[in-house]
């Protein structure tokens, strides 16, 4: 097997679930797979496998990709050998797309089913990993999660040895909260606005792209007791969208998920 560079695209927000009228970020991610018809598996765990989220995934991806999803809540509806299927199905993908929701609940479920190990292996094999919100936070060592009470530090899978903060522009208090945590000892990391994607090759940030002209991303670190925030160079994907070889149809023209398109490991 040829070796591929591990790649993660961490979205501060955006993609098919948040941007109905823009496929820019999803197209950018699909192009990284270099596959003519990429195999894309959606993990909606952080939403509790919400049906509407799964439907939106297929609307966006079933036209141009071999799309599938895995439901961690309906594994009882699958056939035999599901445990093996989970790993082999995921390791057979070009792209694993993780949905948003609650990162703590998602990591709890993943670990209970051994998915954390499978995803690490997928990453090492060069299967592109991506996602917005919880689907971004999960790849880092530490993350800021706001859920039931004040925002707090949560541990992620640690594939990327940094901290991460999402929806940086969308929620006014986020920036101050993140700075406080970094000042108090959370490791240095990256913050991204909605519509902005941090593209890592290996563990190094390679590029920052955006579906919005004004999208921002920042490196945040502590230096001599002070928090320093550095704005990163962001490439707006707008003008280049038409050139993408892997453009998928917009939601208006995409087919509804058919029987074959909706193939999931566990028929949910």
């Amino acid at each position, binding site marked *: 097997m040829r070796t591929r560079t591990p790649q993660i695209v961490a979205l501060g927000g955006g993609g098919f679930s948040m941007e109905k009228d823009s496929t820019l970020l999803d197209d950018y991610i699909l192009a990284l797979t270099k596959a003519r018809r990429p195999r894309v598996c959606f993990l909606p765990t952080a939403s*509790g496998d919400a049906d509407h989220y799964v439907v939106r995934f297929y609307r966006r991806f079933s036209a141009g990709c071999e799309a599938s999803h895995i439901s961690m*809540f309906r594994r*009882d509806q699958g056939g*035999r050998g599901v445990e093996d299927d989970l790993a082999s199905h995921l390791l057979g993908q070009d792209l694993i797309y993780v949905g948003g929701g*609650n990162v703590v609940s998602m990591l709890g*479920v993943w670990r209970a089913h051994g998915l954390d190990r499978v995803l690490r292996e997928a990453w090492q094999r060069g299967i592109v990993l991506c996602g917005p919100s919880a689907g971004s936070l999960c790849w880092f060592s530490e993350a800021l999660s706001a859920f*039931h*009470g004040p925002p707090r530090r949560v541990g992620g899978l640690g594939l990327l040895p940094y901290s991460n903060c999402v929806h940086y522009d969308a929620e006014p208090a986020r920036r101050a909260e993140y700075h406080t945590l970094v000042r108090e000892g959370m490791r240095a990391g990256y913050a991204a606005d909605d519509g902005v994607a941090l593209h890592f090759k290996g563990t190094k940030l390679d590029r920052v792209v955006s579906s919005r002209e004004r999208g921002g991303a920042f490196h945040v670190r502590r230096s001599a007791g002070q928090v320093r925030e550095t704005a990163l160079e962001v490439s707006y994907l707008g003008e280049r969208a038409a050139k993408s070889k892997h453009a998928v149809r917009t939601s208006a023209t995409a087919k509804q998920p058919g029987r074959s398109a909706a193939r999931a490991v566990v028929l949910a």
Partner: protein
Amino acid sequence: MSASDRDKRRLIFAMGGGGFTMEPTNPLLDDYVLTLAAAKEPRILFLPTASGDTTTQINAFYARFGGRACIPRYVSLFRLGEEERPLEEIVLEQDIVYVGGGSMRNLLAIWRAHKLDEILLEAWRKGTVLAGISAGAMCWFEGGVTCSSGAPEPLEGLGLLEGSFTVHADGEPERLPVWLSSLRSGELPGGWAADDGVGLLFNAGTLERVVSSRPGAGAQRVDAIAGELVRHRLEPDLLGGAPSTFGAVLDDDVRELRRVQRLRREMTGESHRFEDV
């Protein structure tokens, strides 16, 4: 019973199936749950965690409890931005916590990730009634039989109650042989199997009462003693008055049929592949 006696109670009501998600037209078990709290108008919290917080379960909860003498609410561990207060504060002010069915493995993993297991233990010690069906019932015991990963398999629970618990003994019969063989092998401790519609009430770890919303449904206690399974059938109190004569006649037939089916399964159970059941 005096108020101070009530205060000392540590109640857990474990249902093999039934309640608002499975019996939309039969409120007997859910009405019984409300009577377990000392408060006239109890605060009842629904935790739909095991289902992934599906809207279906949440709606069914409000459809059942919305019009009753109680203060219903739910907490989602998936949806964001609904509640600013810490989980602990919300849970500890409840009179009843009602846990829905779904994936037992996910339920426990998510609770532990949020430290909700510790909060629920504290709530129980403080007198909050814990109730639940299916995964939401097995979770309180030392172990249960889950289909969280596909085929039924034993899974460790929170251990608030000694023994194991298996659910849907009549409705999903493929669990029972797995439970029995786990008892025989010692992987699970002796415990109870409950049919759909049957609830077991435990007070401070001791089985106090068995109730049912359906004629003919039952429960059993099974222990492995010197490698042999010793079984006792438990006759539930039928909630909501006496069954009709017609029901009673049917009852015996159904019971006989189930007994034969069970015997058959047990005889072949050990070598069975569960997709065949």
